[in-house]
């Protein structure tokens, strides 16, 4: 392979070898105008054929979710499979699972922003939307698992006729504050990032209603220098605010378990291990959503193979951290010499729920190791299936933590076997309806890629690029 070289001022400059050249973040030399058309066009074109069946299915499932909640409220928690000694079941598993999925959005939008990872721009909008909808699904479970749902407002510190406050020393209370803060900040961050793009949608809108709606939510954005200056500062501030939240929320969720004194729960590794698992499952979900999405919306040049590969690498890294945590838990159980701790972990791997432990290990630790291979990372079908397995594994991780720690109490008289009921299962399946109903509405009405941000990282945005710079007559 002959490498191009030229001599400048007597120094011979050689172009880097082909395999070291970075793939551009927007492929096929697509320009700025093309990008606006490609992204805004998704919601401007007539509704695609696949959208309605997908939306109606999601809507149906969402109805199932609410019907199950109504049944639960009218009948009582007995409709779930909970029973002595397993008093926490699918509701808590699903809560932790959904809230974990939410973590990728904030990580991509905040931490990767602060780390100057420019590739985040193509995926951050959809990932943040995923975060918000996942937190909504997660929020349902702690509220409905309290049994008397009409008293759930007692979780909030509101002055009341009982003259008492919630128990501020309980991690369940910290959860309320952590999750509600997380939801609020994520929503604000997402919405603020949307403002310049909503203005684009407003300016391109044809109907009066669309002009009004996009106009209302774009808050009078004109793209003026002052607007951009304020926007960039606010974005940086919100990124700074969200960054600790990525770490704090799942740490606090993990304290729900580790503050208690149950073998298998009472460990100091829980907060970092939960955060790694959350990012792992979040990236799994982002891949699951974006691989079909880029195809269906014609965004292969924006969400490129390079993006997919990078996300696979994050998944590999976090999956390996999770694997290390599993190993360390087992090691500490042995090293501590505590027979109860040892029994809890023996019971996980070889007790009545042995299958859930091995599904967890396979999906979270063994299978993601395939991402070491570039061939695997570049095979969309394989990546997609593996991304789903990541979330299967992460669901089972929470199942293992919640159920196997509870089902063998200290006395054999308090041993039991937990089985979910059809209500448990349909409630969980129904939350997918809720998630996808919102996600499909998001696809249909909002710009699913951050147009303004991608324009900033497009090769042509670089003044030194052959096609770039503010040359007279340049196309914008």
């Amino acid at each position, binding site marked *: 392979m002959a490498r191009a070289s030229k001599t400048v001022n007597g120094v011979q400059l050689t172009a880097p070898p082909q395999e070291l050249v970075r793939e551009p973040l927007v492929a096929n030399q697509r320009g700025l105008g093309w990008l606006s058309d490609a992204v805004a066009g998704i919601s401007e074109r007539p509704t695609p054929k696949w959208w309605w069946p997908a939306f109606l299915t999601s809507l149906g499932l969402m109805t199932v979710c609410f019907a199950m909640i109504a049944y639960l409220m009218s009948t009582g928690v007995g409709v779930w499979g909970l029973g002595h000694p397993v008093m926490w079941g699918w509701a808590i598993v699903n809560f932790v699972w959904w809230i974990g999925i939410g973590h990728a959005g904030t990580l991509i939008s905040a931490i990767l922003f602060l780390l100057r990872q420019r590739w985040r721009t193509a995926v951050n909008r959809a990932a943040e939307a995923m975060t918000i909808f996942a937190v909504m699904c997660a929020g349902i479970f702690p509220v409905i698992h309290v049994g008397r749902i009409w008293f759930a407002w007692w979780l909030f510190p509101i002055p009341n*006729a*009982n*003259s008492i406050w919630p128990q501020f020393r309980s991690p369940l209370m910290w959860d309320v504050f952590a999750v509600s803060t997380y939801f609020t900040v994520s929503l604000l961050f997402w919405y603020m990032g949307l403002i310049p793009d909503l203005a684009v949608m407003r300016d391109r809108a044809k109907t009066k209603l669309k002009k009004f709606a996009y106009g209302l939510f774009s808050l009078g954005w004109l793209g003026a220098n002052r607007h951009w200056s304020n926007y960039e500062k606010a974005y940086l501030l919100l990124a700074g605010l969200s960054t600790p939240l990525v770490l704090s929320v799942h740490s606090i969720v993990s304290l729900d378990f580790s503050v208690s004194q149950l073998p298998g729960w009472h460990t100091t590794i829980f907060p970092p291990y939960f955060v790694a698992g959350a990012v792992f499952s979040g990236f799994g979900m982002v891949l699951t959503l974006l691989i079909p999405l880029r195809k269906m919306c014609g965004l292969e040049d924006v969400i490129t193979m390079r993006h997919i590969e990078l996300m696979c690498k994050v998944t590999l890294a976090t999956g390996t951290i999770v694997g290390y945590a599993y190993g360390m838990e087992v090691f500490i159980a042995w090293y501590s010499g505590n027979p109860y701790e040892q029994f809890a972990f023996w019971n996980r791997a070889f007790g009545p729920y042995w299958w859930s432990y091995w599904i967890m290990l396979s999906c979270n630790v063994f299978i993601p190791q395939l991402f070491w291979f570039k061939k695997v990372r570049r095979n969309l079908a394989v990546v997609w299936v593996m991304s789903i397995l990541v979330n299967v594994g992460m669901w089972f991780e929470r199942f293992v933590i919640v159920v196997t720690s509870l089902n063998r109490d200290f006395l054999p008289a308090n041993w039991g076997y937990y089985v979910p009921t059809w209500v448990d299962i349909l409630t969980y399946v129904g939350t997918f309806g809720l998630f996808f109903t919102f996600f499909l509405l998001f696809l249909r009405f909002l710009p699913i890629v951050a147009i303004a941000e991608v324009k900033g990282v497009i090769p042509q945005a670089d003044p030194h690029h052959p096609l770039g710079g503010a040359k007279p007559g340049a196309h914008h």
Partner: protein
Amino acid sequence: MSDIFPKWTNRLPALVLAGVAVMGTAGVAGAWYYFTPKYTRVGYQPIQPVNFSHNIHVDQVGLDCRYCHNGVEKSWYSNIPSSTLCMNCHSQVLKDDPRLALVAESATTGKPIPWVQVHKVPDYVYFNHSVHVNRGISCVHCHGQINQMDEVRHAQPLSMTFCLECHRDPAQKIRGLEHVFDLNWQAPSPTAQIDEGQRLVEEWNVQKLDNCSTCHR
């Protein structure tokens, strides 16, 4: 953007803010007033099957509470007297009065008079009458001035706040045992109440007892 938004929309943010403020205040004030036991319970005064007046029996005749509610010092429950107890007097006083026909009938047949219960605490609340009246809590603290009522009325909210006000600071209510059944008694001054209350709290070793399991067992 003048072609998108008509001029009146300039006033919209202010209107929305004002609306939120008004509705928010109304919502909070409404819940504050209507959704508490102060509103839902106080003033409840059902019509009883017999037109019994506590006012006549206590203030005019001079009966002690314990003549009829004779279990109150010994039991968690302050009993409703049986109709035979009424007949101790009413076999001679007003014995043919039609207003007492039901009492006489009940005393003969043994079928109880269907009194309507006025004061109720939820079944998840454990309440013991004897421990209260034996430690200086008067009937009047929870039931109001029953001695002045012709028909019994719910005088206090009996909400958790109501219980906790006293449980968190018993000295403000506790009185000497000689005044427990004297519903008209009041400490000579608020400071005298506190001084005497604090003395009794110490003497009787009254604890604050504001744990959940004090009442929710």
